[in-house]
């Protein structure tokens, strides 16, 4: 299908983009990579009266290390993040997740910030940001504010972003000494939406895991930090007994929903399997 007609604006500054957002009273959509927006327009699931194309806002593009964190601009393409040495060094979890995000042609165009702002429950990056305890930077006409990733995702496709706000960057704490990350997802075809996925980050000393953050995705409306399961193994050695305690505790942390791919019951089984795999990867 073809989209409904809309007006198109291509602002050349962030202030101009924010001004357009304010004056559109919630009837505008931000066009960044367009890899999720365009399908909804083509299928007429949404019909904004104005598209604000932010692709000319060079200030939102790029990766840099500053002030103890890795800053990834909202407009940075997935393919740039995937190939970034800074990301591989300071936030290896994100590098691990990138190949799972759709397909090369989509990663060439899709943006890091777009994936966060959309908050698809099956998306990889929101879970990675929760696992890494990242901050999300948001701009509005009053200035900029920051919010922790785990507070940003509210519900299915719902975030803390107001209609007149724009996600500008993500700040990830630099990978600390002794910490390791692991990422796994189960999908029917490479690049498809995950049936269940898990992004993990923890301090590892020998076989002992601590400060563990297990962020599940494609489980329910938002990424879910399995705090009880993580606490159950914290400071302990990863072995079969500890893994089975984590798996049992996941039943308290997770409230899976049914989706197109599988039932809630299946998702819980997958989550348990992934937690076992991830913990073994973390200590190897």
């Amino acid at each position, binding site marked *: 299908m073809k989209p409904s007609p809309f007006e*198109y604006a291509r602002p050349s500054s962030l202030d101009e983009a924010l001004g357009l957002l304010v004056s559109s009273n919630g009837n505008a959509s931000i*066009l960044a990579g367009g890899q999720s927006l365009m399908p909804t327009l083509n299928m007429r699931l949404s019909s904004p009266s104005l*598209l604000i*194309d932010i*692709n000319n806002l060079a200030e939102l593009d790029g990766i840099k290390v500053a002030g103890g964190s890795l800053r990834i601009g909202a407009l940075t393409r997935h393919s740039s993040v995937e190939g970034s040495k800074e990301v591989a060094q300071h936030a290896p979890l994100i590098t691990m997740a990138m190949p799972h995000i*759709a*397909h090369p*042609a989509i990663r060439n*165009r899709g943006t890091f910030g777009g994936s966060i702002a959309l908050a698809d429950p099956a998306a990889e990056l929101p879970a990675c940001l929760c696992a890494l305890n990242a901050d999300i930077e948001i701009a509005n006409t009053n200035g900029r504010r920051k919010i922790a990733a785990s507070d940003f995702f509210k519900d299915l496709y719902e975030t803390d972003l107001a209609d007149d706000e724009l996600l500008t960057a993500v700040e990830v704490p630099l990978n600390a000494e002794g910490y390791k990350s692991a990422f796994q997802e189960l999908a029917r*075809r490479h690049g498809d939406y995950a049936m269940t996925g898990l992004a993990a980050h923890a301090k590892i000393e020998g076989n002992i895991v601590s400060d563990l953050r297990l962020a599940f995705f494609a489980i329910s409306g938002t990424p879910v930090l399995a705090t009880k399961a993580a606490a159950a193994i914290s400071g302990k050695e990863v072995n079969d007994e500890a893994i089975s305690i984590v798996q049992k505790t996941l039943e308290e942390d997770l409230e899976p929903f049914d989706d197109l791919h599988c039932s809630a019951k299946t998702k819980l089984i997958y989550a348990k399997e992934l937690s076992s795999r991830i913990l073994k990867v973390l200590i190897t």
Partner: protein
Amino acid sequence: MTNHIQINTTVNGENVSRLVEPRTSLVDFVRYELSLTGSHVGCEHGICGACTIKVNGEITRGCLMLAVQADGGTVETIEGLSETGEIADLQDAFLNRNAGQCGACTPGMLLTADALLKTNSSPTRSEIREFLSGNYCRCTGYEAIVDAIEVTATNRRKGS
């Protein structure tokens, strides 16, 4: 009625200036405005890969980009790549291995395979399949396509 917007872009090496409606996708633009019908329209939501077009040197989904966004950019379609002869060996390999069949996916497959071979000169069969995972083919079962790409990679390494 929305305002039409003037765009200036380079398509297959030629300068193109047109007034376009903002909602026109890049693939519809090259097909209907420029009569370059080699880029196919399949699912129109980024799943099938039939509309693959190169923009500023990188493969993209022609259905997930607006024509107005190509303003000031460089666009290459299967017609352009065919004319320059740069993927002639890949096209020959597809023909020899009967990797085309109905042909709906073929232009997208060729552009995607070309992008793979530019970044990885000796991909394994599994890497080929992974890179092509965003391009649907409903005829070949993919075996013939993977074969053709593998043969092209081998021949290019031999310099033949």
